[in-house]
């Protein structure tokens, strides 16, 4: 074994260590693999650097300026600063937008994104993976049917050309809002958005299929699906029921509250307030969900107030 090579890759390469590195390379942290040429073996380093150069060139070619030169945003693709109003389109590869002040956004293949400002991107189609460290509520992604407001850290947003989409939260929180509707999506949950309807009702990714299919049916117009939604709900799915409580007409709220109260601990005497849509009652119901780290919530403009 060549210890110098094991230590810092100096000296002649050790064939066995090279083989192991090659076999394990696919497990390397994805963040690093998205960066070009980070301490690779010389040959791989050249290949990755060349691939990165091609990728950056492709990204630059895919920019479509919106007329006269515009102000720069905080976003960069490689060494290229993205300007306000510029549109990025990807073909069959991903590109990464970095901003020291905002975070990191990966744009998936077949996507189109417009950089409105440093704090506002518009995803027209495709997939966006965002890891954001700007203060909560400062960074938003617009789609044709909803606005995703970052309240935490990491999420994925898919949209089609018509404005239908799905937002999945990995860590932290995201608010999805439009058309006077607002959905709050915690880590492990996802939420659809639909053309002309805006954000739907969020649900946890691990919810039972009976629950999610009934919810989808209800949201797309099958009014008889609501009892099936309620029957299939687990305690964790009270998040979804809270959104129904805040969103449904008064006539349906009593039924939803009754099931909500079976799943989480809330005083039964809140029922009348919940049916009326009373803001303080909805707050108490939210607090009963016991979701972690709701400090952001206290500063949020609750639309039902």
């Amino acid at each position, binding site marked *: 074994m060549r210890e110098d090579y094991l230590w*810092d*890759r100096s000296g002649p390469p050790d064939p066995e260590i090279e083989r192991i590195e090659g076999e394990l390379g696919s497990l390397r942290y994805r963040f690093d693999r998205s960066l070009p040429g980070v301490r690779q073996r010389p040959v791989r380093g050249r290949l990755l650097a060349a691939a990165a150069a091609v990728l950056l060139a492709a990204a630059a070619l895919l920019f479509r300026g919106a007329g006269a030169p515009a102000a720069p945003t905080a976003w960069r693709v490689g060494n290229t600063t993205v300007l306000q109003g510029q549109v990025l389109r990807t073909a069959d590869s991903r590109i990464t937008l970095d901003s020291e002040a905002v975070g990191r956004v990966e744009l998936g293949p077949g996507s189109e994104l417009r950089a409105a400002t440093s704090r506002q991107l518009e995803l027209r189609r495709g997939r966006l993976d965002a890891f954001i460290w700007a203060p909560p509520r400062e960074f938003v992604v617009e789609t044709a049917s909803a606005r995703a407001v970052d309240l935490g850290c990491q999420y994925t947003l898919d949209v089609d050309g018509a404005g239908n989409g799905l937002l999945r939260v990995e860590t932290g929180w995201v608010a999805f809002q439009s058309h006077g509707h607002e959905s709050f999506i915690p880590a492990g949950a996802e939420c659809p958005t639909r053309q002309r309807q805006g954000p739907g009702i969020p649900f946890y990714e691990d919810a039972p299929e009976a629950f999610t299919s009934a919810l989808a049916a209800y949201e797309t117009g099958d009014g008889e699906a609501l009892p099936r939604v309620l029957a299939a709900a687990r305690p964790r799915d009270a998040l979804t029921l809270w959104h129904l409580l805040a969103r449904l007409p008064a006539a349906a709220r009593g039924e939803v509250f009754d099931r909500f109260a079976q799943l989480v601990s809330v005083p039964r005497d809140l029922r009348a307030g919940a049916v009326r849509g009373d803001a303080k009652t909805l707050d108490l119901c939210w607090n009963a969900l016991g979701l972690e780290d709701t400090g952001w919530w206290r500063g949020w403009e609750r639309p039902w107030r």
Partner: protein
Amino acid sequence: MHVMLATIPEPAADERLIQRAAGGDRAAFGELYLRYARMVHAILLARVPPADAEDLVQDVFMAAMKRLGELRAAAAFPAWLGAIARRRAVDHFRDGRRRAEFSLSTADDRRVPGGADQALITLDPLRRLPEAYRETLIMRLVEGMTGPEIARQTGLTPDSVRVNLCRGMKILHELWKGNANA
């Protein structure tokens, strides 16, 4: 040819970043993430299935961000962050919603298409090494960190890292020999 976007941490710069991050500067925290994500990932990969390790990196940094104000000495940051990662790996298996144990035959690694099976086969004996050797070798062989980088990021002395790498490789050889003779 090296294109260096990930910077090598300098102790003084780290200290400033940690102070800024503790004061709520998210950009500073983002820079710490850029610097230490590979170390955290290696610690997690030594303990949990690869598909879960990537997700847990974010959990570790979120936990660290919340608790950074508790850190009294910036120099302790690497070790403190490593401890959070190890703790998160333990918690991962206490969470009943997660998979119970790593398994070569059932590992569902959505992010290693092509070569995934061989990677998991190669990783398996690494994960059976004693903890110190296991983490150090994963940082070196999976994450591509050099010995000096590992020493800077973990707070271990360079001599300790060198010993961990060399002894770990020797034990690996013995494991492979045992497998070959079995």
